[in-house]
């Protein structure tokens, strides 16, 4: 078994907080009408934050770098764990979104919903919030591998600005389509989602590379 897989196992069995798994359930918020459902993505990230915090309290980073692995492997493992949780939450949200876009397109609370509806744009925003977390929080954490207060506060501020912007956007004349419930056949909406997938993959990849370089410079 490769070190990267063993380290992901270590993240899951030893470093992870149960809250990381529990908070995946916030992806179910995609069902709630009249609520800023993107906040669910923020809570998923908050769950991952709990694991980083628990890891720090349990000397997880020191334990990891003392194992016969490289420091870069330790960084990759944290990113892999975060992406795993994010993808599980995304999968839950994607299933709910598909249900809403196929079976519930005419459901009154959703059709008249003044807040964000679950559609491809919502999934795209969700991915952007995850990318933001990986970039701002995880990338920031590995500057010291110890201090995470500032990176997390920065993530909170930027993610809430993004949530507000996403809620405002579909009220702007001409952009109402971003909140439609019947967008299953919309090429524009699928393109928006595809673009978000691309952006989040690139941002996370670059952030991980930067974090590896930062962590290499850290004295334990």
């Amino acid at each position, binding site marked *: 078994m490769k070190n990267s897989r063993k380290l992901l196992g270590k993240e899951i*069995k030893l470093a992870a907080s149960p809250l990381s798994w529990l908070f995946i359930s916030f992806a179910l918020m995609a069902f709630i009408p009249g609520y800023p459902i993107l906040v669910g993505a923020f809570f998923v990230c908050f769950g991952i934050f709990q694991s980083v915090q628990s890891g720090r309290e*349990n000397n997880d980073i020191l*334990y990891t770098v003392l*194992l016969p692995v490289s420091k870069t492997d330790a960084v990759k493992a944290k990113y892999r764990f975060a992406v795993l949780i994010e993808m599980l939450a995304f999968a839950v949200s994607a299933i709910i979104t598909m249900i809403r876009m196929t079976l519930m397109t005419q459901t009154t609370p959703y059709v008249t919903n003044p807040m964000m509806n679950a559609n491809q744009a919502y999934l795209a925003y969700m991915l952007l919030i995850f990318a933001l977390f990986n970039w701002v929080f995880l990338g920031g954490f590995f500057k010291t591998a110890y201090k995470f207060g500032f990176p997390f506060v920065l993530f909170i501020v930027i993610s809430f600005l993004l949530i507000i912007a996403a809620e405002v956007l579909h009220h702007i004349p001409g952009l109402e389509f971003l909140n439609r419930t019947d967008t299953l056949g919309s090429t524009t909406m699928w393109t928006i989602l595809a673009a978000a997938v691309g952006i989040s993959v690139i941002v996370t990849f670059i952030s991980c590379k930067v974090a590896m370089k930062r962590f290499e*410079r850290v*004295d*334990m």
Partner: protein
Amino acid sequence: MGTVLSVKNLRKEYPKFTLNNISFEIEEGMIMGLIGRNGAGKTTTIKSILNLIHTSGGDIEYFGMNLAEHETEIKQQIGYAGGAVDYYKKKKIKKIISVTKTFYSDWNDDEYRKYMELFELDEDKTPSELSEGMKVKLNLTMALSHGAKLLILDEPTSGLDPVSRDELLEIFKILAQKGVAILFSTHITSDLDKCADSITYIKKGQLQFSGTMSDYIEKCKSEGIGETLEEIMIHYEKENLHEKFA
């Protein structure tokens, strides 16, 4: 006997402290004490040889291999235990072990069970339920179960009661007889009287001496400095105090 660890001209510069020109060698089956006052540079030396911090200069080789180039290979063959550090304090020992062992190609479950029994460790307990002495024993068990040829221990006897300390030093001697080399830092000189073959004495980041303990004590005795390590350390460190207040 083969050289297990060779440190040459190790240097680490901090804004207010410099560890300078530290050199020493450890052979198979040797117990070396790394001594010095608090803040002398013992932990910095240990962190440097574990590649936990970036050195400003010098060469570190394990089993003839350069540390920077063969880090993962070297870590398969060494074990580390910090005195007060515990990992995953609320996880059961058996869970920690089940993960840890997957990283070591030479992990031996029979050896693991043997040391768990010998040290009277219960794998259903969590590290938070262990005393300081038992934590050190757990770290030793983990290191010995993957066949570590060198144990690097940072103040393993600090915080231990006299009986546990004596017991631990006895364990060191038994392990050394089996060919395991041990490097342990301490500021408790009586620990070294009981088990160390050699010492590396660091004073304010500078190497004061590195070699066999009997040679050092003989030399200091002939110079009228002292007859025990404690007397010698007090002589050197106190001399400075006198200069300061002069």
